[in-house]
């Protein structure tokens, strides 16, 4: 690929950063952009991201994620993803007990080490403790999904609980997230499309990261 083309694509990076940062939010509010316009810009942003990925690939260049800040926008949740996540967790709220207990049971079965955090509860299949604890977890995840941009605020009390009282090793959050994904796949079947899977995986990673922010 020509150097000129690569330069042109890299020149689009400020646009990409602009579209996701606070500057974009201010711009779109101040200029009263319609939802349709904002969506079109965000679609362009998705295309630009794809072009950037293509340019990187064509050059077989490995970009260090930390040093090239614009790449971080690729991993952020788009508006469509946030909407999808919110809708899915809203649907799961009425069956929070079933979803939560199922995910926990899967985690205890596949990763027995996780049981060490639950010696104070009866975690046998069908137990009242399992249902109530599972329900708490799913409702917290659903609450966060209502406004993902406010996750740190929503989770502040849970952050304190996990950091100073529960002190669950953060590696376990990944194990529960995986089991939660399997539970959702079993519950939603074909509706758990790759796009939904990716969005929820990203959300659960973000959730876990926020939850462990106060650990050190």
């Amino acid at each position, binding site marked *: 690929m020509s150097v000129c083309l690569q330069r042109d694509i890299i020149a689009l990076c400020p646009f990409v950063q602009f579209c996701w940062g606070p500057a974009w939010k201010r711009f779109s509010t101040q200029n009263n952009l319609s939802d349709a316009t904002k969506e079109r810009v965000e679609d362009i942003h998705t295309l630009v991201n794809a072009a950037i*990925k293509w340019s990187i*690939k064509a050059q077989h260049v490995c970009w260090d994620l930390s040093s090239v800040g614009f790449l971080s926008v690729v991993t952020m949740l788009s508006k469509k993803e946030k909407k999808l996540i919110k809708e899915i967790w809203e649907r799961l709220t009425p069956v929070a007990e079933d979803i939560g207990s199922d995910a926990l049971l*899967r985690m205890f079965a596949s990763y027995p080490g996780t049981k060490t955090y639950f010696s104070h509860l009866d975690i046998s299949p069908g137990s009242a403790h399992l249902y109530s604890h599972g329900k708490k977890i799913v409702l917290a995840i659903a609450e966060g999904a209502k406004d993902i941009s406010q996750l740190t605020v929503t989770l502040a009390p849970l952050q304190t609980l996990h950091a100073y009282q529960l002190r669950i090793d953060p590696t376990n959050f990944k194990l529960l997230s995986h089991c939660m994904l399997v539970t959702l*796949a*079993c519950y939603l*079947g074909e509706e*758990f499309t790759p*796009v939904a*899977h990716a969005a929820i995986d990203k959300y659960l990673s973000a959730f876990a990261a926020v939850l462990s922010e106060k650990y050190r």
Partner: protein
Amino acid sequence: MVKWTEEERCIIRGVWEKVDIDEVGAQLWARALIVYPWIERYFGSFGDTFTTTAILNNPKLAALGKIVLAALDTAVKNMDNVKGAYASLSRVHYEKIKVDPEHFRLLAECITISIACKLKAELSPQVQSTWQKFLSAVVDSMRSQYK
């Protein structure tokens, strides 16, 4: 060498019997690439893999998915010596394709989730646990020649 009880063998074969290799295989890499886009690094010769639509409709990815599941079939049939059965595969992935072994684990997770979408409640917590134990053995075998 992993030791399997009769019950575990039964469970693993039971899961595998229900998997339509063509159906699940066709969408396997699409799921992996959409969920973990950075594994695109191996797919330089696969044409358009830059948008979700392109990934979902890429025939080379679909074909590769079926090849992977056909290889998994070999593992199911050689449960007592997956390491031996996969030695040359492991070498190829290490020396020629240069795959990060962490990515075997990521693909294994996608396989489990694809199967969960099909099997639904039949993939109970116990069945999932046994199936994942099998996939861990497969992943370890794929890593065995990385020296």
